[in-house]
C-alpha cells in the first residue's frame, strides 16, 4: 500500500484543491454539500498522510523519497513541482491533516447559520491544499509558490467576515507584513539560484558543502530567515498575528496556531544545512526567537481578550521554537512545533466554544464561573493550559524541557534564563485566564452559557487526548523515537538531565500558584498591582506602542511620499509637456500676426528673404573665390 501511495503522494494536496475548485465553481449554492465535500477531502488527505507516516517511520531513519515533474524550465533556470518525503515531511503531514480535519469538523458547529459557509469551506480546503503542498515541496521555488498561496488563504480567511472594517484591515495588514517577509525570502532564493544554479534541497546541500565564502553566505542566510520572520510572526513582523484574531476562531486555531505559523519553523528545519553552516545566522535566529518569546509573554499578561491572550502565547511559543533552532536543537524545535500545534489548537477551539456560548463575548472579565455550565470545555481547556505550561507528563513538558536542555548544552546560559522566565510567565497568564474566565466570581455573564453540541466538543476531547499522549513520542520511555528520526548532523543532541526536568516543573507550578493567589484568592488584588506598576502596565497593554510606530512610519514614508510623487508627476512631468505645447501654440500665435493683410508687407518680407539669401550666397561664393 505504502509503495503505491508514495510516488503519487501529490494526491494529498490535490484532493483539497479539487474540493476547492468544485465548491468555487459549482457547489457554492448548496452549503451543506460543499461542507461535506471539503471535510471528506481532508479526511482522505489525513488517511493518506497516516499511510505515508506509517511507511516512513517503519523504514530505517534518514531514507528520503524524491520525485519531481517539470514545471518551469528554461536553459539556466529550472523550477519543478516535486515530492520530498522524509521523516520531517511525514510529521508535518500528520500534524497539518489532523488539525485541519478536526478544525473543519468543529467549524460545522461554530459556523452554523453563517451565510458564507460554502466559501468558508472552499477557503479552508484551499488553505489545506497549499499548506500540504508547501510541506512536501522538494525545492525552494516550489516552496515559495505555496508559501505565497498560504499567505493569500490567510488573507481570505482573516477577512472572511468582510462586512467588518476591522476584519478587512487586519487581512490587508497580515498579507502586507507577510509580503515584507517574502521580499527577503525571494531575494535569498535569487541569490541561491545565481550562486548555485539550482534550488533543489538535495543539490543545494551537496554544492554548499564545500562553500565557505562567508561574505555571501551571511546575507543569504539572514535573508532566507526573513521569510520565517514574516510568516511565523517573529519580532519585527509580529504585528499581524494579534489582529488576525478578527477571523473566525477555527481559522485562528488552524492557521494562527498550528499550521501556517509553523511553516516558518519548518522552512528553517528543512533548510537547516544552510543556517547551520553560518554561525552568525544561528545566533541571530536564537536571539530573535528568545526576544520574541519574552516580548510576547510580557504582553500576554495584560491582555483582556481571550483570543488576544492565546495569540500572544502562540507568538511566545514560536519564539521558543525559533530559539531552539537557533541554538542548533533542531529536533527539540520540531518536537515542540508538533506538541504546540495540538494543545494550542485545543486552547483556541476551547476559546471558540466559550465565545459561542457567551454569544460573541470575548472579554475574560465579563465571563465567570463557566466550569459549572461547560464542564467538557473547561476540563479540556485546563488540560491544554497544563500542557502549555509544561507540567509533566503532558506533551508540553517534554518539548519545552528539550529546548531548555538544548540551551544549556549549547552553552547559551542567557537564553536558558529567558526560557525559564518565559515558562513561568506562560503558566502565569494561562492560569490567570482560567481563574478569571472559568472560576471567576463575576456570575453575571455565565447565566446564559451552556455546553455546545457534540460536533464541537468531540474534537476538543480528541485534541486533549492527543496533547496528553503526544509528549511521550520523544520521551526516554520510547527512547526518544522522534529524535531518532528527525535530527540533523549539525544539530546538538542533549542527553536528558533530571535536574532540569525538576526545575522547569517547579517554575511552572510557581506560575500557577501566583496566578491562583492573584486572581482566585485576590490575596494581592489585581487592581493595586496595576496601579503600582502603572507605567509598565500601560506600555505592556499597548503592545509597546509598536503598532502606533508602524502606523506613524507608514503614514510618513508611504502615503506622504506617494502624495509628493503624485504632485511631482502632475506638475513637473505633465507640466513640462504642457509647457512645450503652450510654447508651440504661442509661437504659432506670434507668427500668425506677421500676416497683417497688407500686400506691401508681404512684398517686404519677400524681398527681405531674397536679400538674406543673396548675402549668404555671396558670402559662400566669396569664401570660395578668395
Amino acid at each position: 500500500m505504502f509503495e503505491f501511495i508514495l510516488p503519487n503522494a501529490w494526491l494529498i494536496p490535490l484532493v483539497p484543491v479539487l474540493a476547492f475548485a468544485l465548491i468555487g465553481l459549482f457547489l457554492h449554492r448548496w452549503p451543506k454539500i460543499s461542507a461535506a465535500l471539503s471535510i471528506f477531502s481532508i479526511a482522505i488527505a489525513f488517511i493518506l498522510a497516516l499511510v505515508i507516516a506509517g511507511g516512513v517511520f517503519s523504514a530505517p531513519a534518514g531514507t528520503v523519497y524524491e520525485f519531481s515533474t517539470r514545471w518551469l524550465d528554461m536553459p539556466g533556470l529550472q523550477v519543478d513541482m516535486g515530492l520530498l518525503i522524509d521523516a520531517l515531511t511525514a510529521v508535518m503531514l500528520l500534524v497539518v491533516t489532523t488539525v485541519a480535519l478536526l478544525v473543519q469538523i468543529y467549524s460545522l458547529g461554530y459556523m452554523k447559520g453563517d451565510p458564507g459557509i460554502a466559501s468558508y469551506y472552499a477557503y479552508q480546503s484551499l488553505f489545506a491544499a497549499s499548506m500540504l503542498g508547501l510541506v512536501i515541496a522538494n525545492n525552494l521555488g516550489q516552496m515559495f509558490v505555496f508559501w505565497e498561496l498560504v499567505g493569500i488563504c490567510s488573507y481570505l480567511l482573516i477577512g472572511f467576515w468582510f462586512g467588518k472594517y476591522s476584519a478587512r484591515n487586519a487581512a490587508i495588514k497580515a498579507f502586507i507584513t507577510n509580503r515584507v517577509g517574502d521580499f527577503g525570502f525571494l531575494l535569498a532564493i535569487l541569490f541561491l539560484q545565481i550562486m548555485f544554479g539550482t534550488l533543489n534541497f538535495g543539490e543545494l546541500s551537496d554544492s554548499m558543502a564545500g562553500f565557505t565564502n562567508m561574505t555571501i553566505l551571511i546575507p543569504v542566510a539572514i535573508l532566507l530567515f526573513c521569510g520565517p520572520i514574516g510568516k511565523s510572526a517573529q519580532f519585527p513582523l509580529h504585528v499581524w498575528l494579534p489582529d488576525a484574531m478578527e477571523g473566525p476562531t477555527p481559522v485562528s486555531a488552524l492557521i494562527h496556531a498550528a499550521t501556517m505559523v509553523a511553516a516558518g519553523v519548518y522552512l528553517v528545519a528543512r533548510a537547516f544545512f544552510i543556517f547551520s553552516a553560518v554561525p552568525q545566522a544561528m545566533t541571530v535566529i536564537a536571539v530573535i526567537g528568545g526576544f520574541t518569546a519574552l516580548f510576547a509573554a510580557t504582553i500576554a499578561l495584560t491582555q483582556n481578550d481571550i483570543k488576544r491572550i492565546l495569540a500572544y502565547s502562540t507568538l511566545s511559543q514560536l519564539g521558543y521554537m525559533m530559539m531552539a533552532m537557533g541554538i542548533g536543537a533542531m529536533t527539540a524545535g520540531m518536537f515542540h512545533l508538533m506538541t504546540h500545534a495540538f494543545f494550542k489548537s485545543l486552547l483556541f477551539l476551547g476559546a471558540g466554544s466559550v465565545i459561542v456560548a457567551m454569544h460573541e463575548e470575548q472579554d475574560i472579565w465579563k465571563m465567570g464561573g463557566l466550569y459549572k455550565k461547560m464542564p467538557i470545555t473547561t476540563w479540556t481547556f485546563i488540560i491544554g493550559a497544563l500542557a502549555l505550561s509544561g507540567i509533566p507528563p503532558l506533551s508540553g513538558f517534554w518539548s519545552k524541557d528539550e529546548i531548555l536542555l538544548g540551551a544549556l548544552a549549547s552553552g547559551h546560559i542567557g537564553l536558558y534564563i529567558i526560557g525559564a522566565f518565559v515558562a513561568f510567565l506562560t503558566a502565569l497568564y494561562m492560569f490567570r485566564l482560567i481563574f478569571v474566565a472559568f472560576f471567576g466570581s463575576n456570575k453575571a455573564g455565565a447565566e446564559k452559557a451552556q455546553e455546545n453540541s457534540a460536533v464541537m466538543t468531540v474534537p476538543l476531547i480528541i485534541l486533549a487526548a492527543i496533547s496528553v499522549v503526544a509528549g511521550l513520542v520523544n520521551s526516554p520511555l520510547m527512547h526518544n523515537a522522534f529524535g531518532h528520526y528527525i535530527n540533523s548532523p549539525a544539530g546538538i543532541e542533549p542527553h536528558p538531565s533530571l535536574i532540569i526536568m525538576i526545575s522547569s516543573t517547579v517554575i511552572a507550578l510557581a506560575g500557577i500558584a501566583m496566578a491562583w493567589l492573584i486572581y482566585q484568592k485576590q490575596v494581592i488584588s489585581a487592581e493595586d498591582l496595576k496601579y503600582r506598576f502603572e507605567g509598565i502596565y500601560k506600555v505592556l497593554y499597548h503592545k509597546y506602542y509598536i503598532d502606533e510606530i508602524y502606523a506613524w512610519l507608514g503614514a510618513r514614508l508611504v502615503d506622504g511620499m506617494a502624495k509628493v510623487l503624485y504632485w511631482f508627476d502632475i506638475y513637473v512631468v505633465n507640466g513640462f509637456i504642457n509647457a512645450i505645447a503652450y510654447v508651440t501654440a504661442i509661437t504659432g500665435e506670434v507668427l500668425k500676426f506677421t500676416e497683417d493683410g497688407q500686400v506691401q508687407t508681404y512684398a517686404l518680407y519677400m524681398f527681405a528673404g531674397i536679400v538674406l539669401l543673396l548675402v549668404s550666397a555671396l558670402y559662400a561664393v566669396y569664401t570660395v573665390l578668395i
Partner: protein
Amino acid sequence: MNNFPILSLILLAPLIGAIIIMCLPKDNGKAIKYIAAISTFLSLLLSLVVFIGYDRSLGGMQFVEKIPWIADLGVNYALGVDGISLPLMLLTNLIGFSAVYASWNNKERIKEFFALLLILITGVMGTFVTTDLFIFFLFYEVVVIPIYLMVIMWGSTKRVTKEYAGMKLTIYLLIGSAFLMVGLISLFIKAKGITGVPSMDMAFLATIDFPVSFQVMVFAFMAFAFGTLLSMFPFHAWSPDGYAGAPTAVSMIHAGVLKKIGGYGLIRIGLFILPAGAQIIAPIIAVLAIGNVVYAAYICISQKDLKYIVGYSSVSHMGYVLIGIAALNLISINGAIIMMFAHGVMAALFFAMIGNLYEKSHTRNVDDFGGLAHQMPRLSVGFMLAGLASLGLPGMVNFIGEFTIFVGAFSTYKVLTIIGVSGIIFTALYILRALGNVLFGPRREEWDHLQDLKGPEMVPLIVLGAAILIGGIFPFTLMDLISSGVGDLIAQVGLVQIGGIL
C-alpha cells in the same frame, strides 16, 4: 494546411468584420454586435489553432506568407510567427474578443464604435504578425487614429477633459513614432549601403553587422520611440490620462496590447538587429525601468480613481518588462515576454471589470464604493482575480513573469533588481487597499440597485481568467514556446546565455 494563409485570415478577419459593419444600417445594434463577436471569435479560434499547431521543437518562423509589395524599397507583405510573436498575437485576440463583449451594452453610435474597435484590433495585431520592418511600422502608426477617435467620442472626462487626454495620447505616440521612423529609415539606408540590396526583412537585416556608433544612434531612437509606447519613466505622462479618458474597450486593448508593441519592438528590432547598440544603452534603460517600477507603484498608493490605479500600475509593471529586456540574457527576455502576456491579460480583465462597474454606477472613485461584494459577488471575483494576478500571486501567470525577470535581471544588475523586487510590496499594498475599499467593508444601500454580471458580461471574466490561471498553473505551455523563440534570437545574436554581457 501548410499553404492555407491562416495568418492573413487571422489578421484580416476583424477588418472584414469592420467593413461589413460599415455597410449595415445604423440602428440594428444586435447584428452589429454579433458580427463583431463572430469576427473576433474567428481570429481567436484560428490563433489558438496556430498556437497548438506551432512546432515547438523546430522553432523559428512558421506559418510564413510572403507577397512582394513595394519593389524598390524591398518591402513585402511577409507574415510569420515564432516563439516571441505567437503569444502576443494570442494575447491580442484574447483581449480583442473580450473587449467586444466588455462593450456589449454600449448604447449610442454602436456602428462607429464597433467598426473602429475592429480596425484597432487588426492594427494592433498586425505589428506582431509581420516579419517586415515597413509593414511593422505601418501597423504601428495605423493604430493611433482609431484610438483618438474612440477616446474623444466615447471617453470620459475625469481629472482632464477627454479631448486633452486623447490629443496628448496621440501626439505623444506619434512624436515617438516619428523618431522610430527616422531610426528605421537610417537602418534601411545603411543596410542598402552595406549590402546594395534594398530589403526590409528583419531576419535579413539582423545578419548585417552595422558599425557600433551607428547601432547606438539608431537604438537610441528606437529606445525613445518604444520607450514612450512602453511608458518608460520620463515619457510615461500620456498613459495614465490616456487610460482614464478612454472607454473600456480601448483601455483594455491599449493597456493590454498596445504597450506590448513597445516591448516587442525593443526585442525584435532593438536586440535582434542592433545588439551592440542594445548592449551600450541597456544600463540606462535598466535604471529608468527601476525608476518606472518604484515611482509608479508609489503614485498608485495615493490614487483615488480606479482607472488611474490600473494605469499607473501598468506603468510600474512595464518597468519590470523593461528591466527584463535591459538585462540582455535569455532568462530575463523570456521573463519580459511572458510578463507582457501576463500584464496584458491582467490589465484587460481589470479594465473590463472597472468598465462594467462604471457603466452601472457612473463613478470610479474608490471612496464612493464599499462592500460591493455583497451586491456583486461575480464582479468581486473578477476584481480579486485581476488584483491578485497584478500583485504577482503564484498560480497566476504574472508571478511566472516576475520570477523569471527577477532571476534573469539579478544576474546582470544586482542592486537595481533588489530595488525592483521591493516593488512587489508596494504593488500588494495599493492593490489590496483599493480592492479592500471597493469590495469589502459594510454593505451600502445606495449600491443595492447594481445587478451582478450576467450572460455576455461574463465572457471577459471567463476568457481572461482562464488565460491567467492556465498560464500560471501550467507555465510550460507558454514558456517552452517563448524560450525556443528567444533561444534562436539569442543564439543568432550571440549574447552569453545566462550572465548577459555586463
